[in-house]
């Protein structure tokens, strides 16, 4: 504790030194030498980061809040002195969840805005479009907002790309094991998005309860009629339905099941389970007949981050403070917490990359130190030279009214046939001002 406190004091001092100098030599306080413009996007007193998110269009509800959370976090960080005396200049652009547009805006971020790194680009098809470009240009592509295996399983092909959230396969495995232990007699039906999201989740879940699964139904994103799928699950006699779907399809599946008089135990994977958003969507789709997420009462879901319905969680309290002080309009939501937590990891990476990092230093720092970082994310990351996968674990909780209640503590696993083990680490403590204190691992 004392060491951390001392480090905080030192970095605060360094930051103050930077601002007193009036930007002459940046945050040159301390003994590590002066700040330099060490690579594209880094100047003596700023670091430019870029991101692409759907700010307009069908995927905008919910997801468009993520960058506002990250923006608020970076604003508060900048007020407190930034990273090594440099402020973060965070630019996020709209891709409307269209890969063609993603390619255009990422070109703009890299070639025109000249960002140091891309952070938190959202979506599997969208980010796929820029994966090769970023890696061939040597732009660090940190913490993609998607649980696809594409981002981290093959660091040799994509050395600059890192995942962040729990991948869908690991999530499927943890859900599968939970069902096998707690609902051994359940007849399980799967409700899957027809892409790698549903596919990876199904692969994971089948490792544990292949014999319990009575039906696997797939929906195509964009087709809003899920009646046939839900009816098929009902006809197959499934009394436990696991959904790997996006929030709008959580709402659609609930409404359809209500119409069909079908009432199984629901389990929604993390992506599709945000109660606030699903509540709004239900209200919207049912034209006011269902006004909140009460339909979700009793449903199970997974978590890798603390959520807004845990007001006693110190991380949530800190994020609430940051949102109140530096955020814009609206309330703190789970999506904003996601953005802030991602920003937190980004700051850890920048600190670990040293005072004058290059793009390659940043990647190396994450490979060396990333596995040890603690923060709001419940389980540790898997970063190493061999893997760029994000966090490895999840807890399982039950949605009850406006809150959730944890039914299984954090479990750790990995892709493939890695075993599932309970995580024995303590939840990380919140550092002062919610700003991490990582030591540089780059010489």
């Amino acid at each position, binding site marked *: 504790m004392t060491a951390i406190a001392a480090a905080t004091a030192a970095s605060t001092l360094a930051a103050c030194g930077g601002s007193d100098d009036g930007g002459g030599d940046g945050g040159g306080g301390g003994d590590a030498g002066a700040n330099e413009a060490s690579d594209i996007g880094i100047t003596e007193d700023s670091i430019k980061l870029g991101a692409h998110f759907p*700010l*307009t269009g069908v995927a905008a509800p919910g997801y*468009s809040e993520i*960058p*506002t959370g990250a*923006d608020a976090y970076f604003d508060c960080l900048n007020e407190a002195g930034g990273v090594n005396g440099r402020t973060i200049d965070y*630019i*996020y*652009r*709209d891709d409307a*969840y*269209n*890969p*063609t547009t993603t*390619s*255009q805006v990422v*070109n*703009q971020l890299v*070639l*025109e805005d000249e960002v140091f790194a891309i952070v938190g680009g959202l979506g*599997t*098809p*969208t980010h*796929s*479009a*820029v*994966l*090769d*470009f970023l890696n*061939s240009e040597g732009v660090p592509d940190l913490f993609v907002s998607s649980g*696809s295996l594409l981002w981290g399983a093959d660091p040799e092909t994509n050395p600059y790309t890192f995942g962040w959230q729990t991948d869908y396969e690991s999530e499927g495995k943890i859900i599968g094991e939970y069902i096998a232990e707690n609902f051994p007699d359940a007849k399980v039906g799967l409700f899957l*998005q*027809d*892409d*790698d999201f549903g596919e990876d989740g199904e692969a994971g879940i089948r490792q544990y309860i292949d014999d319990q699964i009575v039906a696997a139904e797939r929906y*195509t*994103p964009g087709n809003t009629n899920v009646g046939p799928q839900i009816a098929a699950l009902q006809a197959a006699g499934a009394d436990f339905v696991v959904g790997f779907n996006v929030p709008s399809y959580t709402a659609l599946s609930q409404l359809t099941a209500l119409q069909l008089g079908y009432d199984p135990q629901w389990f929604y994977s993390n992506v599709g389970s945000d109660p606030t958003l699903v509540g709004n969507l239900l209200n919207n789709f049912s034209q006011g007949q269902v006004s909140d997420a009460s339909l979700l009462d009793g449903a199970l879901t997974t978590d890798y981050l603390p959520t807004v319905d845990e007001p006693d969680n110190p991380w949530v309290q800190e994020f609430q403070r940051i949102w109140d002080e530096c955020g*814009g309009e609206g309330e703190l939501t789970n999506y904003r917490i996601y953005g802030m937590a991602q920003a937190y990891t980004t700051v850890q990476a920048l600190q670990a990359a040293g005072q004058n990092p290059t793009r390659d230093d940043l990647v190396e720092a994450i490979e060396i130190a990333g596995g040890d970082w603690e923060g709001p994310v419940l389980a540790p990351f898997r970063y190493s030279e061999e893997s760029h996968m994000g966090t490895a674990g999840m807890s399982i909780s039950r949605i009850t009214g406006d809150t959730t209640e944890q039914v299984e503590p954090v479990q750790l696993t990995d892709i493939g046939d890695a075993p599932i083990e309970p995580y024995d680490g303590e939840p990380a403590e919140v550092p002062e001002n919610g700003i991490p204190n990582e030591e540089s691992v780059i010489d």
Partner: protein
Amino acid sequence: MSDLQSPTTGKNGAGTATAGKASEEAPTEATAGADEPTATRRRSLLPQSTLLRHLLVLLIAAVGAVVLLEITDPFTNSQLATLTYYAIAAGGLTVLTGMNGQISLGHGALMAVGAYTTALFLSADEPLPLPLILLAAIVVATAVGALVGVAAARLHGPYLAGATLALAVGLPGLAIYFHDVLGGEQGMRVRAPRAPEVFESFISAVSGNSATNTKWLAYLGAICLLITYFLLANLIRSRIGRTWRAVRDQEVAAELAGINLGAWRVLAFVVSAAAAGLAGGVLALVVRLAAPSGFTLVLSLALLTAIVIGGLGSLLGALLGSALLVFLPPFVTDLGAGWGLDNTEAAQLAPFVYGVVLIVAMIFAPAGVVGTLRMRWLTRQAKRSAAQPSRG
């Protein structure tokens, strides 16, 4: 005659009306100037032969493209690469809609055909040379276009719009249905072949800039665009173009003149599908991905918007309209950010301004940018010739 033809017809009509008031002989010249190649008789500076004239324009355009690509920064290069595939598809569409009077909401889907063909061929272990692959994209899209064209030749106006709409909505779904081959929702990633060495030495000889992959793709797009527009321009000025216009403007008269309406309509659809296929191939290379979410109805509508704003039936108009599609949204977003809006609000400003521009264009320039300018010019010509009644 469908509503869709009215802008073009209106243009001619207006020209005729204004000219008619001024002089007895002006109408023929005015209408001829808009559509007929005979108008070129009086131009003395340009070569007599249409082919030579187009070759000259092609040469100038090629030099212009090289200059433009070399004086602009890498990001503008990438925007120009984007412009090329929109412009190729819009050029094809303007032939169909402007010249032949058929509407298509399905060109996004035809681009998808070209893009997936390119992606499939490039994913082979030893891919064919790029020109062959793009040719394959054209051939496959042409085949699909011929099938649709046969159905489309029997349909008119809203019914044709509906049929092609079904194509736009349905075809990308095939990628999800055959997800093992076509990659499903997340699509097929495309690795564009590296630039040949010739290209690198060309760039270093011309400007000394570094021959990046972005630049190579922009050049590739520009080459495809120039070839496409050269061929389309020749086609428009040929007997085929004249026949299409005859089919568009007066069905009965055309049929009486021995023109098989259906066959010529199918041909127009096929030509425009070929352009869409090439555009899709270039898109796959530039975007590095062929995914269903890139070929939504929005893409088809954007193409239609481009040719309407630019001026129906004009290749220059298609190019201008495409430029608006590519350059307006980032411009507005940056403008919004400059006014102190946050990034989300600035992003939401772009579709709004786009809508306003569309409405303003429809009110003040219903014939599109090129159409309106041309109309003004013709009116002035007619007035001038009215002032000199002795000539003629």
